[in-house]
């Protein structure tokens, strides 16, 4: 109930607040009689609605992928970026800026997604996907190795090329602005696909958490489940990163927050509720970011880091041993 009100509040903040604040009547006016020369109507239709859509997509994607990551690695403090997805996207964005001179919003979105996917595939293969034994520890180690390699390359490139650095430093902070220029429909579909896959996999991941042999005895193939979970994380994180950049902390804090708010103990309920919590957190952070230093905007990734840091410390300090779900 409280969550639903917060969610509605976050949507209202996204649509209504900004340098030009907008009443419900004005929003209704824009819906029934859209006037392309009215600044308020244009702000609503071409800036705030796409921004809302971007927030819903990225919030859902990051929160659900966080839940799956934490179940997959059996680590309640795991982050979706752990498997090299963010580093892969970062590398693709920087190489795109370097070789193709691309810095348009759509180009960056289209580069980030395959970059994220390729990195995830590399992590899966390095983590034992070929030998058929991709345990959580091997996957995590492979993810760290791939991330470190890719981020070193990114750092090397941006040290030499200031134009690539300019593209990178803005992208890495994360933003929901310029959403209209991004392929939102495609990324929304990818996110929904990832979410459905996660919902389907959730009981199997719960089974896997009992241990490899017991899971096998219960009819779940560890390789298939882990491969499927990695696919879901890749789809979701890839879409989230393509829409909004590598936004920190959302994938990390939303899953434990969801577990506390809903009191759920199974992954499927968590995955079902995570999109609402994720989108609420992201949209609230973005709304605050647009207001604190107006007319300039603080990028949403900066806001989630400012808000997420203390929340993360609180979660880590109040975590009960053995609690995962």
């Amino acid at each position, binding site marked *: 109930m409280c969550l639903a009100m917060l969610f509605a509040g976050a949507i209202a903040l996204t649509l209504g607040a900004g340098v030009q604040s907008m009443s419900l009547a004005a929003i209704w006016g824009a819906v029934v009689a859209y006037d392309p020369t009215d600044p308020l109507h244009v702000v609503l239709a*071409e800036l705030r609605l796409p921004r809302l859509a971007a927030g819903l997509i990225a919030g859902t994607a990051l929160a659900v992928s966080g839940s799956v990551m934490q179940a997959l690695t059996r680590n309640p403090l795991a982050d979706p970026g752990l498997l090299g997805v963010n580093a892969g996207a970062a590398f693709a964005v920087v190489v795109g800026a370097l070789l193709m*001179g691309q810095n348009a919003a759509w180009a960056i979105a289209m580069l980030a997604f395959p970059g994220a996917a390729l990195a995830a595939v590399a992590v899966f293969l390095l983590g034992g996907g070929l030998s058929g034994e991709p345990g959580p520890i091997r996957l995590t180690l492979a993810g760290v190795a791939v991330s470190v390699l890719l981020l070193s390359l990114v750092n090397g490139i941006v040290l030499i090329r200031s*134009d690539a650095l300019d593209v990178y430093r803005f992208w890495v902070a994360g933003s929901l602005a310029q959403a209209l220029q991004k392929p939102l429909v495609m990324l929304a579909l990818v996110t929904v696909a990832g979410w459905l896959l996660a919902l389907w996999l959730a009981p199997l991941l719960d089974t896997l958490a009992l241990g490899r042999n017991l899971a096998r005895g219960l009819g779940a193939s560890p390789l298939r489940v882990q491969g499927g979970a990695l696919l879901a994380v890749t789809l979701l994180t890839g879409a989230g990163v393509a829409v909004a950049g590598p936004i920190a902390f959302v994938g990390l804090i939303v899953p434990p927050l969801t577990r506390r708010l809903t009191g759920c103990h199974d992954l499927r309920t968590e995955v079902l509720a995570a999109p609402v919590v994720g989108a609420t957190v992201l949209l609230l952070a973005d709304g605050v970011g647009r207001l604190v230093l107006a*007319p300039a905007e603080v990028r949403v990734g900066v806001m989630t880091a400012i808000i997420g840091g203390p929340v993360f410390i609180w979660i880590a300090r109040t975590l009960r041993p053995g609690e995962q779900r």
Partner: protein
Amino acid sequence: MTTRQKTAIAPPAFALNRRAVLGGLLGAAVAPAGARAQTAEVWPQRFAHAFGETVLDRPAARVVSLGYTSHDALLALGVVPLALRYWYGDAPFGVWPWAADLLAGAEPVVLTGESGIETVAALQPDLIIGIGSGISQAEYDVLSQVAPVLMHEADSPIYGMGWDALTRILGRATGKADLAETLIAQTTQAFADARARHPDWQGKTGTAAYHFSGEIGAYAAFDGRSRFLTELGFRLTPAIEAYQGEAFYIPMSPEDLSGLEADVLLWLSGTDTDDDLAALPMRRLLASHAQGREVFAGTLTAAAVSYGSILSLPFALQRLESEIALAADGDAATVVPSSAKAGLAP
């Protein structure tokens, strides 16, 4: 691709600059040693600046240029720096087309990132230009043990010393004060000529604007990019004039770009196309847009305005004069070519 475009665009501009500069050299050579030479050529020369005072006993010949754009003024004076600071772009040795010919085959050391005190010391310079470099007092103190260091004047912004003042100081330091005055007079004249050709520009408003990765805003009044417009006779809008912040730019919300509204809106871009700028929803509601008052400066032209040097400004003027004229008339029917090419035109 961009490199090729630059090379393709460069030759006529070289020719113009070379002629201008050679003319300047010739002028200086035949000019009699007048009254100014007597006052200027007294050594030692003293330079008061933000970090204290620097004294030069004789004209500097081995110069390291740490400022991001100060090498332009040195090259204009015929002094090829031993080392220069890389700012941005693909130009060989960090020297952009408007100054490249003046390297005359020399291959200066290009300093990237930090100022590289060891590299500087190894070159055994007799003068280090710190104007527009952003070095700290501590770095200044260390560098001063290598060679005398010149800094910006105490009352000027770190990156905002005028091209004329910079050229004058460097002329004095390298024993070419007369040549510096001749070159300054030429560039001043180029702006005066442009003003004379376009009396209708006087008193109209102009805004120098940026867009990068969704960040939009205008350059502050003291920034060289705004001064480029004011030197052509435009005045800035009251809101930009009134801005009192430290930063050289004034950020704006993508939801309200009305602060950019002006008789001429000059977009300075780091790229030759900018899809995101063209797609900015609120830009389309600006009267500046509807009346065809926008000018788009792509990589090379924007760099020339941004360098704001004695060499780059005439180059920028040459490339932008007709564009600005088409924008300033306020007639949407007279299309501004750069703006149409970038997809900005109404």
